[in-house]
């Protein structure tokens, strides 16, 4: 008889885990997927494309219902898990439904962070996390007017761009002196800023939010230097926090996320975690690629491969703003390492590679990201690039033609 495998969460990590399991150990587990949102799992990465009007919401569904059925997966959508009974090895839904598990996987994702400043809960203030947020932003955009997006990271830039595409006058405010400072160096950030501005977004750097103005609804954003940016819509996109609520309540070891070992097991060997809620090797990843890698490892483990181990991911970022390719991976600063830089700012192009000991260890691509995956592989697989060193920065086709 199949062991009951309960997956809490139905996002991209959970979907990929099911996919991996179904190829490695189809039928070994009786899989039950529990999701709080009432709709099928969708590709969260494409929310900004939906916002930008480039993709229809219906098209971002990850897998159709038939796909789940074909794999014998039981899906329980529209009800969150209220608690875990580790001793009884069961979870209880808010509806009261108890579901027993042999193995439990937490794929609960993350919460968007709202700044702890006044006015953040006023109507007209949104985060940018799920399809509901996207729907609300699109609705606001249809009314026109002005929007302020707080946060010059990946999500904030995509939100700002999407709102501008949707017809709003958008100001992007960012605390730091450059955009995407955790993924880009100053040169790349500057090019990105110019590209974003060329798309009609006003960018304010070094802008520290004091509060959202307005009594009953948000009317704008006040900065600590006293400037006020009027706005009909405020989007707070300053980051995410791992959703470890259930784990915490269940007494699992947590830090910034649910702590997992190389086999993706939590402090309870029958409970696993992956994706944005998990902290693996001390790192909580906020990106989809590490979640997929974790899903692959966990699926092998659950299929009985005890050697499968997750050794961490090379963080890689792809910005999805049409016409503004941005990619960052690995050690993009390259302090004390060799760097190669190709700069054609007028053409919106900038590339930086960081090389250490004949290995590519980091990369930034602005403008032309066609070879992003290749660079990511070279970094991940620790390939000796000596033979193509001089052509590496010009991309795969040229370097491999050597």
């Amino acid at each position, binding site marked *: 008889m199949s062991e009951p495998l309960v997956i809490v969460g139905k996002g991209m990590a959970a979907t990929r885990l099911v996919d991996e399991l179904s190829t490695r150990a189809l039928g070994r587990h009786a899989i039950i997927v529990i999701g709080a949102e009432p709709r099928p799992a969708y590709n969260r990465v494409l929310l900004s494309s939906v916002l930008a009007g480039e993709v229809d919401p219906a098209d971002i569904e990850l897998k159709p219902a038939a796909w789940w059925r074909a794999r014998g997966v039981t899906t329980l959508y529209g009800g969150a898990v209220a608690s875990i009974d580790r001793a009884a090895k069961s979870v209880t839904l808010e509806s009261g439904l108890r579901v027993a598990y042999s193995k439990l996987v937490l794929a609960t994702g993350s919460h968007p962070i709202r700044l702890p400043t006044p006015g953040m809960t006023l109507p007209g203030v949104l985060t940018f996390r799920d399809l509901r947020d996207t729907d609300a932003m699109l609705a606001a955009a249809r009314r026109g007017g002005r929007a302020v997006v707080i946060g010059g990271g990946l999500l904030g830039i995509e939100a700002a761009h999407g709102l501008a595409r949707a017809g709003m006058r958008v100001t992007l405010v960012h605390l730091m002196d450059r955009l995407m400072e955790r993924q880009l160096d100053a040169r790349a950030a500057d090019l990105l800023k110019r590209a974003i501005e060329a798309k009609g977004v006003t960018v304010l750097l070094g802008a520290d939010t004091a509060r959202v103005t307005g009594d009953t609804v948000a009317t704008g954003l006040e900065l600590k230097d006293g400037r006020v940016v009027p706005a009909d819509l405020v989007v707070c996109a300053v980051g995410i926090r791992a959703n470890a609520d259930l784990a915490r309540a269940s007494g699992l070891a947590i830090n910034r996320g649910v702590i997992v070992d190389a086999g993706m097991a939590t402090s309870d060997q029958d409970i696993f975690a992956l994706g944005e809620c998990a902290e693996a090797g001390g790192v909580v990843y906020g990106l989809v690629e590490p979640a997929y890698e974790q899903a692959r490892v966990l699926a092998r483990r659950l299929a009985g491969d005890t050697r499968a181990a997750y050794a961490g991911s090379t963080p890689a970022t792809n910005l999805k703003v049409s016409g503004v390719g941005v990619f960052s991976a690995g050690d993009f600063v390259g302090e004390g390492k*060799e760097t*190669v*830089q190709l*700069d*054609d700012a007028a053409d919106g192009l900038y590339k930086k590679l960081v090389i250490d000991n004949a290995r590519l260890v980091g990369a930034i691509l602005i403008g032309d990201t066609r070879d992003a995956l290749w660079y990511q592989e070279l970094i991940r697989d620790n390939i000796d690039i000596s033979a193509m060193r001089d052509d590496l920065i010009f991309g795969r086709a*040229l370097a491999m033609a050597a």
Partner: protein
Amino acid sequence: MMHGIAPRTVKTTCPYCGVGCGVAATPDGRGGAAIAGDVDHPANLGRLCSKGSALGETLALETRLLHPMMKGARVGWDVALDAVANGLRRVLDAHGPDAVAFYLSGQLLTEDYYIANKLMKGFIGSAHVDTNSRLCMASTVAGHKRALGSDTVPGCYEDLDRADLLVLTGSNAAWCHPVLHQRMMAAKARGARMIVIDPRGTETSEGADQHIALRHGTDGALFSGLFVYLADGGFLDRDFVAAHTRDFDAALARARSIAPDIDATARVCGLERVAVASFFETWARTPRVVTLFSQGVNQSVVGTDKVAAILNCHLATGRIGREGMGPFSLTGQPNAMGGREVGGLANQLAAHMGFEPENVERVGRFWNAPNMARTEGLKAVDMFDAIASGRVKALWIMGTNPAVSLPRADDIRAALRQLDLLVVSENVNSTDSTTPNAILLPATAWGEKDGTVTNSERRISRQRPFMPPAGEARPDWMIMRDVARRLGFAGFDYNEPADIFREHAALSTFENDGQRDFDLGPLATLDGEAYDALAPVQWPVRADGTGEKRLFAKGGFFTSDGRAKFIAIAPPDVAELSSAFPFILNTGRVRDQWHTMMRTGLSQRLGAHRPEPFVTVHPDDAARAGLVAGGLARVDSAHGAATLRVDIDGGQTPGTIFAPIHWNDETSGGGRVGALVHPLCDPFSGQPDSKATPANIAPVAFARAGFIAARHRFAPPAGFWAWRPVDGGFVATLETDADDAAILAALRSVGGDGDELTLRDEARGLFRAALLRDGRIEAIAFLGRARPIATFAMVADAFGAERLEGAARRALLAGRAAVADAGPLVCACFGVPLNTIQAAINAGAATPEAIGAATKAGTNCGSCLPELRRMTRALAPA
């Protein structure tokens, strides 16, 4: 005035060396012209060398000076001419005629020269008119005049066809007079012997039967030894000596004291006895011998005596002015001879007359001149010393570049800044020899100029225009005429070159009556049409209008007693070396460049033969000095320094090094070899000794190497570089210590504020940058730390593209789109590079003819045949 401009073929004369080849130019109607050899011209019979063949590539206006300039700003002609006249007047009033000087060029036409000489020596009243011919032919002029009584080349080119022995001394004719060299090689093929006397192995010596690699500066001793051998061996023409010469005994006695026999000659000249004996015996027993000489003889502290030593041998045997025999000076410039005819040198007055009182009086009468110069003026080197010391306050330079070509070139440049008035008449908008305060006057260039030139065999040919003047350029004669008129001088009412030529011819025959060799009598009455149609003719011109091929076979020298004079020469003067400067620096030309490259530097084909200034070193010297082939060397003398590419060649005499003269500070970094040359001059001719400067050589290295290219030449960062033309611009190999910022700043100086593309890889020392405007490359640089260095071939296609975008733009700094470098150009006419020739040899081509059949290399001008011959030997597959 501009007769002959028509969209049809115009017969004119090449503006380069003194061979004076006829050129048939057919304008293409787009500012260019198709160039071919004139089959009817007796100097070349249709042949052209690589430089002449490429004339069509040098007609673009990009580097031309197109309007008058004062203090760097454009002005109208009237303003400029007034300023020149007023400036001259001020200096004349304050300091007198002695404070005014003209420095002219062997590239001026005879008509230009005539006006300059007349204006100066008859009206301004100074004889400070000298020319760059001082660097070229002055020792021959002095040598001819001392021995023959006149500056006369006794023979003609046909003698080369008729000779049984051709002796070249101090001449790399294969590179410097290629068309004549081909003619001599044809004679050799018919059975004539060729002996080359040169301390340096050259393309010319490669093709000869014998190469006599004598010690620098000992040519006089060698010919003294020959003189003695002729006398002692009974080879003299005693009748000729008795009837037509004087001072034989004294000259022979002096020769005997210098080189009494073969052994002594061999010792002095640093030669094997057998080489000397065989040369003497061959020369003595071959009546039909032509001894050709050029800069190796002239550019020497004993140049005039070297000429004398050669003439002594020909006079002693009566081998002068007879078919297939005679001494033969090869002239370096297209119209050095015309300048000499006019008298455009400080130690000549006019029309082969000197400063004897009766000549001064005669010319003064002819010109109706108010203010005749009565004594010799300052020769080039002295002239610039006088400028430096403040004695000369006003200088007018026409068509030459003394701050590159004169010895101690750095001092010349400094001296120019001392002047109250500097006027520069030029084709190009920038030479090294200007200052910020100079008045720049745009002169017409070859293809626009209208007048006559004279070649090495005394043959006067027309240079005819086939294009309109560029911009506001005017002929030099017209510019000087208008200044003369502004100065209030009468006698400058010329309307066209024919007016001037008639007066020049009239002066040559004025009260001549056979007293002077230079006589154009019948040409003094040419009308405009006849002048336009003038066929090449040798002087002296006979009454029937035909020219004299040869002079002096029956005596008739232009001395007071009609006898030629044997000269007792000074012993050889060998350069003094020290431990600080242990090498002898020899200078000269390369095949495909001419002078300071103002014209040849614009031709792509010509730039590919020897793209960089180099120094040739013997392998033993190179090993001792730590020099490697293809590396860089710093060459120092007491006067300056140059940085040059090292060329190691077993043909170079140990203890000597050779560097070409062509590069200046606009075309190269550190390649201006003139800065090193010592200012020692021949005591008779005042010609500088450019062939034997004591020097030192040491390896030098820069941190990074690569190339730079741009649409226009610009000043790259400090280091070693040399521009050469490519499609759509110029490229230079660059070796430098400059950092990325300095390189980028240099690119911006030419590329402006275009799009900047950069590639930096500090760990590899790599820096590549390009400036693009509207997608087109304005300037580009590839620099790295190590060899193999980046070459222009990597980006040649992209550089040629009108617009780079997408993948092509993104791959630009990869430099990967292009094919492998094909190696240096060997055949300039057909653009055949080394690797193509190597491939032909590998495929079995064993002779230059076979290579020619396979690749066309060497089948046009033949200039590269010696190189091909050497390659068939050196590169033959094992």
